[in-house]
């Protein structure tokens, strides 16, 4: 373990570009409980603390740069940011354009719907319904593959928050997203009043990916290795579990 970290630190020292703080891209729209900005303009959430712990463990400086989700991959490839650590799932499709670190969490995908609107989280249950998903996510791809045939419409939103808002407003019947993000929504007053958890969708690793990792530019191996070492380090020394315990009842690493 130690040698691994040391090796990573050495490669790290070799890359001159890493002398500057690593620019971590985050979408500024609220995505609780993972990453959102509070009223004082401070980033808060599980993922924010994990990012902090990963870079601290490697003795690296970082800054969070807000980038719209919609343009976050172009921002990475064009060098405006160095890494995306914003609940982005590792998928084959994305791997064609960017590289990923190891996963740092993995949670099931669920359907949440207006009370009584949807019977089951599959094509039959969603027949004739309007489903909302966040644009450019694994959920959009999944919904388009499995539900496009039977659902009335699949609407795409810039942020999950807007999709939830339209679910509350009744403009859509159901949303599909990460279970944790939707748990947080169901815990809010508006979410509890209107909606219910229908259940997890059938897994499809090819589309839903292999967990959430940090996206880096292709070939930026120094940074990727450093982040991998950071994830290993905080998993090993208990930091990861301590942070998780502050937000969730059980582990979200997903073994």
């Amino acid at each position, binding site marked *: 373990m130690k040698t691994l970290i040391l090796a990573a630190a050495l490669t790290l020292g070799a890359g001159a570009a890493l002398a500057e703080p690593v620019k971590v891209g985050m979408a500024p729209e609220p995505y609780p409980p993972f990453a959102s900005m509070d009223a004082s303009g401070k980033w808060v959430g599980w993922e924010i603390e994990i990012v902090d712990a990963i870079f601290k463990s490697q003795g690296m400086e970082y800054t969070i740069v807000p980038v719209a989700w*919609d343009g976050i991959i172009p921002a990475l*490839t064009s060098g405006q940011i160095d890494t995306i650590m914003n609940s982005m799932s590792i998928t084959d499709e*994305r791997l064609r*354009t960017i590289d990923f670190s190891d996963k740092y969490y993995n949670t099931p995908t669920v359907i949440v719907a207006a009370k009584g609107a949807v019977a089951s989280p599959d094509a039959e249950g969603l027949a004739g319904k*309007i489903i909302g998903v966040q644009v450019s996510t694994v959920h959009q791809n999944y919904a388009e593959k499995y539900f496009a045939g039977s659902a009335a419409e699949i*609407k*795409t*939103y810039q942020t999950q928050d807007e999709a939830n808002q*339209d679910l*509350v407003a009744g403009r859509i019947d159901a949303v599909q997203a990460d279970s944790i993000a939707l748990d947080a929504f169901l815990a809010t007053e508006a979410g509890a009043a209107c909606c219910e958890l229908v259940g997890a969708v059938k897994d499809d690793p090819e589309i839903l990916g292999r967990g959430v990792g940090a996206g880096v530019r292709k070939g930026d191996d120094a940074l990727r290795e450093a982040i991998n070492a950071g994830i290993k380090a905080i998993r090993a020394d208990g930091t990861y579990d301590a942070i998780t315990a502050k937000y969730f009842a059980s582990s979200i690493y997903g073994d």
Partner: protein
Amino acid sequence: MIAFLRPRHRQVLLVAGAALVAWCIHALDWSWLPAYWPLFLRGIWATVWLTALTTVLGLVLAIPLGFAQAAGPWFLAWPALAFCTIIRGTPLLLQIWLIYYGLGSLFPQFPWIRQSDLWPILRQAWPYAVLALTLSYAGYEGEVMRGAFKSVPRGQLEAARAMGMPRLTLFRRIWLPQALRKVLPTLSGETVLQMKATPLVATITVVETYAVASRVRQDTFIVYEPLLLLAVVYLAIAAVIVLVFRHFERMVPTRTA
């Protein structure tokens, strides 16, 4: 056309431009285009009808707004002025979000809205887009109409009144036609501006040209090619708008003379 091409430098520029286009076609990645072309056509159609519908509706609203400010009593003139000032003084993006998400946040508080017969329409996104774009156009054009109504020579109105023309006839036959003719040359520019505002409704889930291009960008991670195609599409639509209005402007004087 020939006169346009006569100067030597224009020929050189045209060749350079053609070379640039050829390079774009050759060097950039257009492999996604066949798969998305049908979607693009639907998006372009949405852009066109949104522009046309909201321009017409907005103009219809702008006439009373302008008239109230130009000749109405204070209790009509004042709200009309306030409306135009507010629309012109705030960003359209904010207005669109206020109308879509703001109104949307009211639905849960008033359950009867969801029971009404209008709900299947109200739950869609395009009515809000049409409303926001119409109000915006009415705000800007209302200001233009105010100036147009004011600029109709008083003598014409007095003459008509002296002839004993009823007020409604006077408005319909004298005041409105002259004001509209004054406004006509500005309409082409205003309509291009309205067309340029339509991509903003993509942020409230309306699928038009810009939304299709974003989709391509998100599906394929190709950034510039869809945006370049978008720029070309909007340039073409703007050119068509300008040409159509030029045609109208030529027609109008011969018909009313």
